[in-house]
């Protein structure tokens, strides 16, 4: 009959920035990184991205239609999960394992917590952690980049039948007379064989045949775009890289023969990708500025510690997951001081506990006595007309 009246809570005036827009910009900024990654590894990498994104979107759709999860496909968050997952997996990773990892990423990382905005851990990293635990051999098998014929031929391990063991990548390389090329990541090489890769190779990952992920320099550029447009907080990557560099430098200064230089620490492996795109996930990182610094420093420290003293060569994934888990705690201890409470000579109040009568509203109110709730024994009836 009349026009529909929409009733909803404040805020009624919104800025132009929405979840969809942020996510879409993250996707845009990831595109150059993905393109370069495909340029490095050919169609196997492309297929992996498509499969991972498809797995994430299908799972997300299923959970949305069953009503177990909020959100919608159009918010691009599942797309980002899929792309990031593909970037962290080795290029020759079997596609069916990629599909499993993508599904687990959404189910375990997101859906069971209630969908977008409710997850505790970064979904892409949950998927990768599962793949790491389930398929430890396949996930440690890297093939060299810039192979001849990479745009026409799949890496054979990519096309392994579902549930079946992938063919041996080393044998395939031998057939192509490429077995002299590097088959392990620079980090694994350093950890197990003590070989350090040179700096320029790491930075650009252009000078061929090195089994590294996407180029760190390109990721930094794309991340800078995001930070500049304020779609990402610059504090987190800065804190992560800074603390990783500081810890690595300290160890390097103590014993240069045993520990690699901080430069190697920063640019080998997935630290840059993790710092720029994964640790900055808005849902799973602290919202308080001071918390961001703590969070970043924790991740950087853990990364270096896991890399040096852990059993695995790469530690970024677990460091970020631990950081995610610590986020609520970090937010609690890093609450900003309310306006008017800090200042010289006054003790700063930290902690997120609020008194029932918050004294910072005004002094008069702080001293005021909360009126007791009144219960009317005989409620005046409406129709008696006694209402004043």
């Amino acid at each position, binding site marked *: 009959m009349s026009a529909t009246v929409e009733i909803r809570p404040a805020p009624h005036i919104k800025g132009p920035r929405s979840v969809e827009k942020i996510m879409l910009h993250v996707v845009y900024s990831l595109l150059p990184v993905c393109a370069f990654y495909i340029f490095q590894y050919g169609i196997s990498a492309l297929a992996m991205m498509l499969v991972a994104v498809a797995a994430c979107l299908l799972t997300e759709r299923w959970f949305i239609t*069953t009503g*177990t999860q909020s959100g919608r496909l159009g918010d691009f968050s599942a797309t980002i999960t899929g792309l990031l997952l593909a970037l962290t997996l080795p290029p020759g990773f*079997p596609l069916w*394992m990629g599909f499993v990892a993508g599904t687990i990423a959404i189910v*375990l990382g997101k859906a*069971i917590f209630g969908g977008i905005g409710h997850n505790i851990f970064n979904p892409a990293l949950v998927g990768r952690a*599962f793949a790491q*635990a*389930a*398929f*430890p051999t*396949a996930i440690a098998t890297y093939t060299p980049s810039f192979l001849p014929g990479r745009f026409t031929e799949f890496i054979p391990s990519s096309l*392994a*039948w579902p*549930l*079946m*063991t*992938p063919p041996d990548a080393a044998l395939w390389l031998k057939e192509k007379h490429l077995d002299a090329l590097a088959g392990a990541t620079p980090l694994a090489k350093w950890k197990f064989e003590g070989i350090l890769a040179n700096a320029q190779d790491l930075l650009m990952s252009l000078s061929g045949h090195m089994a590294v992920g996407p180029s760190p320099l390109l990721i930094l550029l794309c991340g800078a775009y995001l930070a500049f447009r304020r779609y990402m907080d610059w504090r987190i990557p800065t804190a992560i890289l800074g603390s990783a560099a500081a810890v690595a430098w300290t160890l390097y200064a103590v014993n240069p023969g045993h520990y690699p230089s901080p430069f190697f620490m920063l640019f080998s492996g997935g630290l840059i990708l993790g710092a720029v795109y994964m640790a900055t996930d808005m849902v799973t990182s602290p919202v308080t500025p001071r918390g961001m610094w703590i969070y970043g420093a924790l991740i950087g420290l853990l990364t270096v510690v896991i890399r040096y003293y852990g059993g695995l060569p790469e530690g970024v994934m677990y460091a970020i997951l631990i950081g995610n888990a610590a986020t609520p705690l970090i937010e609690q201890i890093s609450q900003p001081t309310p306006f008017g409470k800090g200042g010289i000579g006054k003790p700063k109040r930290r902690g997120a506990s609020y008194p029932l009568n918050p004294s910072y509203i005004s002094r008069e109110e702080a001293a005021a006595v909360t009126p007791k709730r009144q219960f009317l024994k005989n409620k005046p009836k409406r129709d008696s007309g006694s209402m004043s």
Partner: protein
Amino acid sequence: MSANSPVSSPAALRNMQEFMEGIWERNPVFVMVLGMCPTMAVTVSAMNSISMGLATTFVLAASCWLVSVMRHMIPKEVRIATYIVIIATFVTVVEYAIQAISLEMSEALGAYIELIVANCLVLGRAEAHAAKNPPMPAMLNATGMGLGFTVGLTMIGGVREILGNGTLLGISLFGPNFQPWVVMVLPPGGFFVMGSWLLLFAIYRARKDRNNAALAAQGASHGA
């Protein structure tokens, strides 16, 4: 089968209900979520799960029967101690029996056979059911609970064995090229599979409730 067999007397019907209670309606693993320690620890293969389940079933049935027989005799003050002694007795019997049947199984199940004594399912049944019912229903109910526990363990163990080893009950399903999911035979795999089953049951139950509600609403509107 049970639906087809004619139920002759109310006593038989009641016995059947006692028996079926633990298998589906109040399944110890998926509904009551009891006895998680063996559920997580020994379900790496279907065979282990079945052995563990049957061992627990025997302990449950035997101790519930004995508790029920002695229920008038046992003073209230010392009942828990008495139950534990009875349960521990049958756990020891099971342990000896498994050692005599298969040493490999005894090694695979390890300390978890002895830990049946601490399984809250067993003490819970003894205290909540056997102590208040005559021997026959008590034993039937305990057997049903034990079989429900076995079914639950086997559903978890089967999935973990299929994904973690490519076999079911030792029979290869996917041929020699199968890629094992290592995580499935590690402790996290137990939690993943358990959680997945609970998730599926929760979704199923939510759908059923929704359908029932819709039907009820329909019926009400038709009636009105």
